[in-house]
């Protein structure tokens, strides 16, 4: 499987950002015909390293050899001309244009003079060869996220990329789509391509890669053959300590419905229907998981419940009191907390201090606010208590939030949202982008709230997470609930089908 010369060789790469050593003397090599996983927690330096390989960043130090030849990568264009292509987490496609136009965009070829049929033929050939099904004449906005990803890959192949880098490619896919992607990648590897796969999901790594390089804090921990390692070992290398994957939770004790949503309808930011008559209930001490591929109404659902988005019809009840279309302040006053999807964009204020962030939901009432003033003493005490109780690693309550790591940001957010003793907690992608250690901590906190009797609506794209934390799982597809199943003993296959739009045969109302 390995040829004499590695197709990619990166030697003693060092890259420093102000205050951070992102890559510290990293040696990395990948061979033609292999799928090489780059594994590490957030901030371990995976993306930095691959951005260097794709010409986006310049290393402070170190050499790069491609097929045994030393090269200088000044720009992504240089990288592409050497056959290196990267598929980013956020796709770089022009929505109103067709697939064929996007594929040829930015090429030096005079594409308007070229026979467009020829281009489409070539795209069709590529998609045939690697199982990347996509219509060359379709416009990007008409495509699903999975199809868009295929366009990105075809784009790279069209440019004759034989070294393909994928940055967390499965984050946006259904399990079925992920499986198709893996098949494609294997076929490409068999053709002699080099596939580098960035991820922090251990299951994926075990399923698809040939070799794994684990990074931690900007350094290489080890490079191992997949066949010679285990999930446990990889996790230990990644985190630097033993990790337990099993979450233990007590069975649901039963209780009243805290949140009832009835036939809720709402529009997206673009004014299109995003929720099309959603009904469900969440009970005391229960976690209701909401599964679904991103963009199927999850955000709108969370915002409709918390008062950030008006319902066009339908009702929302909190403990049998109607809270439909109340304003966010009224709703949060009734002990509803909200961990938004976009932590820095909505949940926190990056440029303000920890304490300013911690009082966001409580500054207006005693003990933090008194009359028109803020009670600085009470605020200080409150913040110190939360920082230590939730183990937020920060220099102090006055330091700026933007300096915190992803895990600490989420601890801070949870500290605030839990400190109000919520009856209902709406948590949207609470562990997205978090490393294994931080994910574990968040899971623990959510389960503690469940134990305390809070109702939790957990929206996530991570099926493993949903299945291990939730009592029941609802699947959202294009603004409708395809079905609600008990998490215990749920079939991933079945959920996957619902995520792709197949309604469950009998409308489930389980354990209610």
């Amino acid at each position, binding site marked *: 499987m390995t040829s004499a010369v590695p197709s990619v060789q990166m030697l003693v790469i060092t890259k420093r*950002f*102000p*205050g951070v050593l992102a890559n510290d003397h990293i040696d990395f090599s990948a061979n033609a015909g292999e799928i090489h996983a780059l594994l590490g927690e957030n901030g371990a330096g995976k993306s930095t390293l691959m951005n260097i390989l794709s010409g986006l960043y*310049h290393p402070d130090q170190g050499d790069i050899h491609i097929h045994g030849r030393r090269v*200088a990568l*000044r720009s992504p264009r240089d990288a592409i001309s050497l056959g290196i292509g990267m598929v980013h987490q956020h796709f770089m496609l022009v929505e109103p244009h067709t697939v064929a136009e996007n594929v040829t965009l930015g090429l030096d070829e005079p594409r308007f003079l070229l026979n467009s049929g020829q281009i489409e033929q070539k795209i069709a050939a590529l998609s045939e060869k690697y199982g990347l099904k996509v219509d060359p004449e379709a416009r990007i906005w008409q495509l699903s996220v999975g199809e868009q990803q295929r366009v990105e890959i075809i784009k790279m192949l069209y440019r004759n990329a034989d070294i393909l880098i994928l940055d967390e490619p499965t984050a946006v896919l259904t399990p079925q789509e992920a499986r198709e992607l893996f098949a494609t990648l294997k076929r490409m590897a068999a053709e002699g391509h080099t596939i580098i796969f960035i991820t922090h999901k251990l299951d994926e790594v075990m399923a698809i890669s040939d070799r794994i390089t684990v990074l931690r804090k900007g350094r290489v921990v080890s490079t191992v053959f997949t066949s010679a390692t285990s999930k446990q070992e990889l996790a230990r290398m990644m985190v630097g300590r033993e990790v337990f994957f099993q979450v233990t939770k007590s069975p649901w004790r039963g209780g009243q419905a805290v949140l009832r949503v009835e036939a809720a309808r709402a529009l997206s930011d673009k004014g299109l229907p995003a929720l099309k008559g959603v009904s469900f209930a969440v009970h005391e001490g229960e976690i209701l998981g909401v599964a679904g591929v991103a963009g199927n109404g999850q955000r709108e659902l969370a915002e409709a419940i*918390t*008062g*950030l988005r008006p319902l066009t019809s339908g009702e929302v009840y909190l403990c049998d009191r109607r809270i439909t279309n109340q*304003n*966010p*302040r*009224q*709703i*949060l006053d009734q002990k509803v907390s*909200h961990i*938004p999807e*976009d932590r820095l*964009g*909505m*949940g*926190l*204020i*990056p*440029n*303000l201090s920890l304490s*300013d962030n911690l*009082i*966001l*939901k409580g*500054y*207006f009432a005693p003990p933090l*606010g008194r009359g*028109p*003033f*803020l009670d*600085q003493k009470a605020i200080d005490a409150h913040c110190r208590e939360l920082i230590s109780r939730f183990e937020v690693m920060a220099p102090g309550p006055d330091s700026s939030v*933007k*300096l915190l790591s992803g895990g600490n940001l989420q601890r801070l957010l949870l500290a605030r949202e839990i400190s109000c003793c919520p009856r209902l907690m709406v948590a949207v992608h609470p562990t997205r982008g978090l490393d294994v250690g931080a994910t574990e901590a968040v899971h623990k906190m959510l389960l503690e709230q469940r134990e305390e009797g809070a109702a939790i609506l957990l929206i996530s794209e991570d099926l493993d997470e949903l299945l291990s934390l939730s009592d029941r799982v609802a699947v959202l597809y294009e603004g409708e609930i395809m079905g609600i199943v008990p998490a215990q003993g749920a079939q991933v296959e079945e959920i996957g089908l619902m995520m792709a739009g197949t309604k469950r045969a009998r409308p489930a109302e389980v354990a209610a």
Partner: protein
Amino acid sequence: MKLTLRLERRLTPSRALGFLIPVFSIVLALCFGAVLLAAVGKNPGVVYQKMFSGAFGSRFGLTETVVKAIPLMLSGLGVAVAFRMLLWNIGAEGQLQIGAFAAAGVALAFPQAPAVVIIPAMMLAGFLGGALWASIPAALKAKLQVNEIITSLMLNYVAIYWVEYLVYGPWRNPKGYGFPGTAPFSPAAELPRLGTSRVHLGLLFGLVAALCLYFILRRTKWGYEIRVIGENPTAARYAGISLTRNILMVMALSGGLAGLAGMSEVSGIIHALQRGISPGYGYTAIIVAWLAKLNPWAIVVVSFLFAGLLVGGDQLQISMGLPAAMSNILQGAVLFFILGGEILVRNRISLTWEK
């Protein structure tokens, strides 16, 4: 080999540089000016010495600099509080004019009133006048999402022409031989001055306003809301902070402070309403607020320094016989270099040799 120059964004703007670069920028601007001055045959050292002593070197210069700093300070504070909340109030000039108009109206309507009554009444009128004027763009923004940059800017012209209309027409001094301008205020309506200088009570307004603003922003719920909205409007909405109410209140405060600047100009300096009560203070205030990074205390300092630059600029003509354009060029250069230097606080330059 080729040398490439790149601007790289600093993750955290440097604090030390935040102080050093403006200083360095001023030095650079002065060097630039020195070349120009040398080119027209003047000794730059002498010119700068004259400028400095003109603005800060004598009791007269110093007090005049303070006089000029007062309206900059008040309207600068007003601009800053709006900018804090991402409300681009470009209308300080108009709000100042309306404040002056309202205060003058009170002074002219009650020529017999004693100082203890008329001065607070004029302050109130000036503040309310500016506040109401600023409420027009605020309401349009809050209710109809109309861009406040355009509306506040356009209202400046309305305000200026309104004052012109009054002083040429209905409010013209009947004993003024038909010349534009109202009758002078009664002595009671004049702000007390410091000794024989022209420094008036408006200075205290400015300092108290800075103190209040600092206190509001740091220690009150309202100030907290302003800071949150300014840093992250989405988070503010998420926390249930009312944008509409804050837009209205902050713009009113902003306009009110500019209005107070107008009141202190007519009551402290001019003692009547006339054309040209402000040579663009409301616009200069925006520059002052920005240079001071919207910090209330820094605005006090920057408005004083900026006033010094303006006052000192006179000496180019008076003592050096240089044309007025020269002092405009120097002022422009200082601004240009300081604002240009800001890029370095936020970014760093990396020079690399490449094959």
